[in-house]
């Protein structure tokens, strides 16, 4: 039977360091997937992932709450925000060019480049690019829901907004993604239905 987070933390505090390693493994993909989709690439995502766990290790003796997954996602969120603030350009992203486009729209989307050499399929790249077109807050809500599999009350706590705001951001995100990905899921459904 899989141990719960609370059991693993209790084991760790009772003297078994391997228990914390199991938590690292348990949330490896959810946490890293969220970080990678929010940031610029594998290297930065590795750094942030590492920093999340360093902070967990530093503060584990103080930790008493019940939602370990929500905790580590919040830590990751804070680190991502801090790094984004430090990278903020001096020109306003809302400033308009002569052709009416905003500077923000001219910036390349975050996330891995299309031909990143990681062996991804066209579908994966297409979906990743579609998600990258979302505004940052909506993108984060979407990724926390889909990658980190957080419930909306935890997403709201992570972003420090009301649950209504988190839900609204998800609705906007889905509304933007729907036309971009409609063809993909229709093709997938047709592929499933067509006998081989």
């Amino acid at each position: 039977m899989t141990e719960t987070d609370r059991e693993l933390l209790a084991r760790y505090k009772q003297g078994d360091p391997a228990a914390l390693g199991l938590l690292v493994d348990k949330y490896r993909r959810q946490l890293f997937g969220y970080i990678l989709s929010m940031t610029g690439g594998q290297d930065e995502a590795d750094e942030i992932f590492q920093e999340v766990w360093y902070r967990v290790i530093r503060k584990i003796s103080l930790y008493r709450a019940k939602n370990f997954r929500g905790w580590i996602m919040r830590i990751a969120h804070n680190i991502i925000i801090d790094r984004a603030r430090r990278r903020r350009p001096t020109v306003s992203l809302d400033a308009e060019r002569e052709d009416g486009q905003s500077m923000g729209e001219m910036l390349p989307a975050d996330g891995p480049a299309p031909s990143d050499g990681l062996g991804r399929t066209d579908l994966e790249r297409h979906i990743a690019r579609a998600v990258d077109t979302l505004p940052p807050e909506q993108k984060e809500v979407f990724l926390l829901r889909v990658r980190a599999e957080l419930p909306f009350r935890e997403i709201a706590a992570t972003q420090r907004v009301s649950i209504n705001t988190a839900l609204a951001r998800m609705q906007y995100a889905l509304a933007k993604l729907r036309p971009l990905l409609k063809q993909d899921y229709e093709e997938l459904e047709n592929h499933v239905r067509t006998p081989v």
Partner: protein
Amino acid sequence: MNCDEMKRRILLDSTGELSPRESEELQAHLATCSDCRQTAEESARLVSLAGENLPAADPSPATLAKIRARIPEPAAAGNVLSFPGWPVRTLAYAAVLAIVAGSWFMLRPSPRVSGAVNMAAIMAMVSEDALEEIDTLEAADEEARLRSLADQLLMMEGFAEEDTFDEDWSTPSGEPVPTGLRWRKMPALPERTRV
């Protein structure tokens, strides 16, 4: 029940966050509303499509090795901090109270300062700066305590608690007022007497 509320519930239902009664109401509505039914189906499809097809991601083996090497023996974990757990928390509380009390004295409203700005400033202090070093989910409990303290400070400033949260209510900078803070400025505050 209107469709806007139902579309919210569709999202909450997908994460199991509806009560049984709310879920029943949603199902009853979906049985009669094709627009909401389509929204529910498309949302589920999109989430499923993205969940299964966003590029799989793993940290590098070197990163994992560094993290594992950093995990101390639990007996040594307490030494990671300079002090045992409880004095750190006590000091953190004291620091937060000092910050909140200081901000209250600094931010006492003059007739020209809007209540929403004061409240936002106090909450920003409580929510952001004061909690920055308390980076644990225990902060959720501590945040609740600090919000309670902030509530008391606001009460002293003449704010009254609302029973419902107005989603459209935001600070002058446009940020929504954080969850848990449901205050409305009481009308006709007495003029402050200069001491």
